[in-house]
């Protein structure tokens, strides 16, 4: 479904992604694991095209020069260098790190803004689906986003991303800073989304353990390079990986 080859991202002379190859098949959950500053967010930004926007802004302000090399193909089409909004239209939706919900709008409005790309019947349908998936949001419809707790915000962020009718959902550290209960709930929801909506999902995490059960294929990033890849089981059985990323 999505294939990126030879991805290299430079922030000025600093190499943030080094020759990364990543692939996601249809209806798969792909995990990308790595420590902080291993390049997970950079990868997500590059795949979703946000990097193009960052690069443009940096260039205008005379900041560091960002170079993106490599090819990204999506559904057999070359999308390298495409604007983020165009990629979103094709179905690549990023649910960003630290959630970035619209903190001054209420829950309902957040979801409706997310439904910008959807037709009104799609929006209605997805809205019902999101409230079914996260019943907790139902009672909070009128609450302003900034007053939600971390877990509620994350649910809202995922719901908002779903409203945009993704075919490939990118989840950047969805479990960051959440309580165990909330983590388990979100992991369950992620699996449900994949199974019921038939989406492909790429999820990044620092600790692999909570998401590992639902991951079909995993990559491990270290210092910007993909050092290891394999199915979830293969990963689990690799002793180095176990100690470093799974906390076992």
């Amino acid at each position, binding site marked *: 479904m999505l294939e990126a080859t030879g991805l*290299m991202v*430079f922030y*000025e*002379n600093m190499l943030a992604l080094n020759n990364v190859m990543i692939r996601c098949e249809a209806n798969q959950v792909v995990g990308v694991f790595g420590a902080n500053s291993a390049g997970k967010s950079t990868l997500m930004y590059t795949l979703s095209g946000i990097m193009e926007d960052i690069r443009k802004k940096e260039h205008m*302000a*005379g900041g560091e*020069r960002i*170079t993106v*090399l490599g090819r990204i193909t999506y559904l057999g089409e070359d999308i390298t260098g495409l604007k983020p909004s165009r990629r979103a239209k094709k179905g690549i939706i990023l649910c960003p790190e630290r959630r970035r919900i619209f903190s001054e709008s209420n829950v309902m409005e957040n979801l409706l803004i997310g439904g910008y790309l959807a037709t009104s019947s799609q929006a209605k349908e997805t809205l019902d689906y999101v409230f079914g998936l996260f019943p907790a949001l139902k009672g909070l419809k009128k609450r302003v986003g900034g007053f939600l707790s971390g877990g509620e915000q994350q649910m809202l962020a995922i719901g908002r991303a779903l409203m945009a009718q993704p075919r490939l959902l990118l989840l950047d550290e969805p479990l960051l800073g959440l309580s165990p209960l909330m983590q388990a709930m979100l992991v369950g929801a992620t699996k449900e989304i994949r199974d019921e909506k038939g989406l492909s999902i790429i999820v990044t995490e620092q600790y692999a353990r909570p998401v590992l059960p639902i991951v079909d294929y995993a990559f491990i990033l270290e210092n910007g390079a993909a050092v290891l890849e394999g199915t979830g089981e293969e990963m689990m059985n690799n002793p180095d990986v176990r100690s470093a990323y799974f906390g076992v």
Partner: protein
Amino acid sequence: MAEDRRKERLDRGIKVRTDGIYALMSKRELAYLTLPRLVLIVGMLILPLVLPSMYWQRVISIVCLYALLALSFDFLAHFVGLVSLGGAFFIGVGGYLAAILNTTFGLPPLLTIPVATVLGATICTLLLFPCLPLRGVYFAIVTLMYPLVMGRIIEALDILGGTDGIMGVESFANPWVEQYFVISMVLVFLFGVRRLVNLDIGLVLRAVMDNDQAVRASGMSITRYKAVAVWVASCMGCLAGACLVHIYMWAGISLFALDFSILPIAATVIGGGGTLVGPVLGCFILVPISELLRAFGTLRIAFYAIILVAFIVLRSEGLMVYGRRKYHQFERWVQV
């Protein structure tokens, strides 16, 4: 193929060396380090000598006053994080003070200027004190309002000469004194502020700018540091105002005009914010252009604005940012 190569920016070897202590090792490296400064200092000092007419010499003085304002703006905006649109306020307070001191108390310019600078800066800081907790654009707009209010108050209450202003202010002893005084003031403040921001106290100011929470968590009052910074900045503004009054021999409401707020900022934008030299350079471009355009009569300001827009759009990072990068770094294509 552009696909597999990228442009790389690297520090010039000489820059890397001169960053260390070895700068004095060779003449070339010494020159690399000091030449830009020497060019600036010498250039500014000989400017009055090479310019042909009294008219252009007067322009130089005005440029320098704007440069002081621009420096004060750049210092506040890029080293303390207070975007102040109140350049005119500083000018006005300094100017009126100098005028009053001169006409009412009969002090000579030699005394009025320093007194107006220090006293004016203190007054400005006190008046701006309640606004210091404001952030970003709100501070900007409030400071924009201050000079307008002052102008209106003077007009409405008909104090300080009302709309006529204060006339008969003593001028500088002669044009040479005037010019060399303002030029040296620009140089003193340029290098002084540069020194200040590189000292550890400058670090604290910069910390106030990008991380005020952490500064508060360290047990320091942000408002106090901001007040100090505003005082330094208004010193420059009030100095410019005091000089201006002595140059024009008149103080009036137009000291509070929007020009004094806007032009220095425009100069900072085209010169490159955060470089300190940039704003000065910007003034040396903008003010003379405005003079050269006088031939166009009323259309002058329109042309002027278009040139300004062109600068901003074509070199949005600012001339000095660009220039400094070119001076310190080189670029090359590398294969990856």
